[in-house]
């Protein structure tokens, strides 16, 4: 979700950092002000009225934050606008930080509460990190990756590119029955070299991208190899080689898209599992606290 519409990437990230720190400081100052007028003690005690109230509020916020999960599962039900959900998710998450810090009395407590609080902090910071990534990487992808595709389908699309490359090279080294020519466009040792290049480097690269360890992953190396082939083959084969190079470049862009996509979403590998664990521990903590405190 983009924060604002007309700001630069740096401006949006700055706004997030400012909002995170600002909301946290505002919450802490509020608690300090309450102490100054005698409403509660400082540092706030987790088991005092303010601490428990913050715990309840924080718990409700966490519960609301987790509702975004079923909202995603049932996105077809159109339970409110996605942007609205994300805005509420982000702001509630930021507000939750000072609330929980006050609830914890700026301490960690026992082992269970320590683990719960650490998970909460990790969830919060991973969320802020993810939000920052979302302000930066989509714009970068838009600018740097023409021909962007669906990240999850890149490997399958790579297979399509490989099929096209196989067909193109085959067309160069064979004579189709409907054609009148007696000789293929490329023949002899050159055809063998072309087939070897296709099978050893081009097709694996198109299918698997950078994972194939193909030299074509490096633009300079690819340019050099295609240039040498282009000089070696007859002029009639050069458009095909241009197309093959274009396919390799497309695959290279998809590799980069894959990398950016990974950084755009990898925080969720932390954010979601830790959110689930933290929420469950929070319930356990609440039950135990209610029983004995």
């Amino acid at each position, binding site marked *: 979700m983009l924060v604002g519409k007309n700001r630069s990437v740096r401006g949006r990230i700055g706004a997030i950092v400012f909002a995170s720190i600002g909301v946290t400081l505002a919450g802490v100052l509020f608690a300090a002000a309450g102490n100054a007028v005698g409403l509660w003690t400082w540092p706030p*005690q*987790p*088991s*005092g*009225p303010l*601490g*428990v*109230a913050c715990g309840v509020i924080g718990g409700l916020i966490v519960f609301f934050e987790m509702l975004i999960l079923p909202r995603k599962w049932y996105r077809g039900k159109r339970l409110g606008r996605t942007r609205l959900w994300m805005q509420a998710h982000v702001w509630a998450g930021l507000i939750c930080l000072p609330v929980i810090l006050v609830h914890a009395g700026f301490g960690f*407590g*026992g*082992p*269970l509460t320590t*683990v719960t609080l650490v998970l909460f902090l990790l969830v919060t910071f991973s969320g802020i990190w993810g939000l920052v990534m979302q302000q930066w990487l989509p714009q970068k992808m838009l600018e740097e990756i023409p021909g962007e*595709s*669906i*990240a*999850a*389908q890149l490997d*399958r*699309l790579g297979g*399509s590119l490989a099929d096209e490359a196989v067909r193109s090279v085959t067309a160069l080294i064979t004579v189709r029955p409907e054609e009148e020519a007696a000789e293929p466009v490329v023949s002899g040792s050159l055809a063998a070299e072309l087939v070897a290049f296709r099978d050893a480097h081009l097709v694996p690269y198109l299918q698997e991208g950078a994972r194939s360890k193909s030299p074509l992953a490096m633009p300079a190396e690819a340019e050099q190899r295609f240039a040498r082939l282009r000089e070696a083959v007859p002029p009639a084969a050069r458009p095909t080689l241009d197309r093959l190079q274009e396919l390799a470049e497309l695959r290279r862009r998809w590799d980069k898209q894959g990398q950016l*996509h*990974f950084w755009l*979403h*990898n925080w*969720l*590998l932390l954010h*979601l*599992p*830790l*959110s*689930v*664990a933290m929420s*469950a*521990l929070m319930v*356990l903590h609440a039950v*135990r*606290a*209610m*029983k*004995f*405190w």
Partner: protein
Amino acid sequence: MPRSPSRDLSDRYIGRRGYFRNPDSLRRGKYALSAVAFLAVVGYAAIDVAQPQRVAYGHTHGPLANPHAAFDHNCDACHVPQGTADLFSPRLFNARARWHDLTCEKCHAGAGHHASVTDDAKQFHNRCSNCHHDHNGRLHSLVRIADTHCTQCHTDLAKHHSAELSKSGKPYQNKITSFVSDHPEFRSLDLAAKPRTLTFSHAVHMNPGQAYAPGGKEAMTLGRIKQLAGDAAAERYRKPGQGDDALVVLECASCHKLDPGIGTTEHEKLKAALDALSEPTRSLLPARPEGAYFLPINYEASCRSCHPLGAPAGSSAGKVVPGFDVPHRKQPADLLGDLKAGYLKGMIATNNPLVAVPAEPGGKIDAPPAAGGRTLAAETERLAQAAQRQLFSGDGCAKCHKTTGTDAGLRVSPIPDRTVWLRHAKFNHAAHRGATCATCHPGTAGAAISPVDAAKPEPVQIEGMQSCRACHSPQHTNVTLPDGTRASGGGVRHTCTDCHRYHHGDQPLQGRGGESWFPKEPRGLADWLKGK
């Protein structure tokens, strides 16, 4: 019709339009990790429900102190569990108060708070955990608490204490913030309420031979002690190489015994001396090996060797009636019976003629037979009265004791129990044995003194608070020593609980074995381990 560029892009997905239904590795990964995290927590919660002791460490704020170690994984042992109904109570938002719902009284007799505290303060003190904080590790002391627990009231005591309910009858200092800065002087040093009723001069007794001045004529020798109290008493005070003509030289420890304990050389010497006098030594010297306080001084153990109590020999019907020892701690009226019995016994033993006179018949028709005009009863009465007058004269009991009344109403003033002078604090003499006695007790050394001054009660020979602060103050604190010199504080501990104890504070000699420390219902071992 030209082909749309978008068509090339969409054509890539021909046959796979539902691609979004098949998650990629990132999506699969986050859900798989979420499931693992959820199951792990659910497993932990299941153990928590089924076997709470196994995971109780997760909920505790820290290990319990050593005395409570058995309850480390058993919250119910001390905390009162809350029920479902409590969820709908306003107390829900006062979890701190719920947390204080403890059951300390199961094992601890709750000697309460000062009788003079206000209701609010009483409520505060009803919560043991307001001052005693557990869950701070095995070695954490539950009784060494921070000064703030005390100063929260003592910085403005009037708010938390009703002076009119104070048992001491004296106003307490309203503001005390620390031992070093504004702690008041020892209240025990003020003898206005209970003046001393015993005349004793340390100066005389610490002079060689217990003379009024060193080298005085009235010197006490070992031979004189042997004559008065026997060989064992003389041996008790004899130093190596001394003969019977040597002057008796007393030291502080000659009388002030720091709980020597049965079996020590000091104890055996004292016991031998007392056994020779047929005194109940075991009741006088109960085993108290802690050594915090000195044993009480008593006549039999410390005075009798030099100051024996005896009825003087008398004369009746031309015969001498021998003198005899009389017991200590008897008022004149009570002693009179002992004196009569003693003289009667002596008269019988010496075949006094009055003993041979037949007892008067039961009736009073005939005049009693006379023997020189006196009867046996009248003679014993005469001898006893004379002895009583002598005993309670200036050279007898009144040499040390103050008396009130005259004749039949004569009484010896009781001596206030001063075994513990600082009754609202604890002090361990054994812990301070590295210092000379005179460091804290000035004026107890030998010195020339006039008989008139020696016959006056001594002031309290305990140095004031400054002598404590010399060591018990933060390092580099400027402290003024009793002699007025300035010094840097010793840095020795100086918190409130280093000297004061709150519970049973008015019973300084009552330790943990005291009756008031016992719980109402002691538990069996199995129940105790389970915290039931």
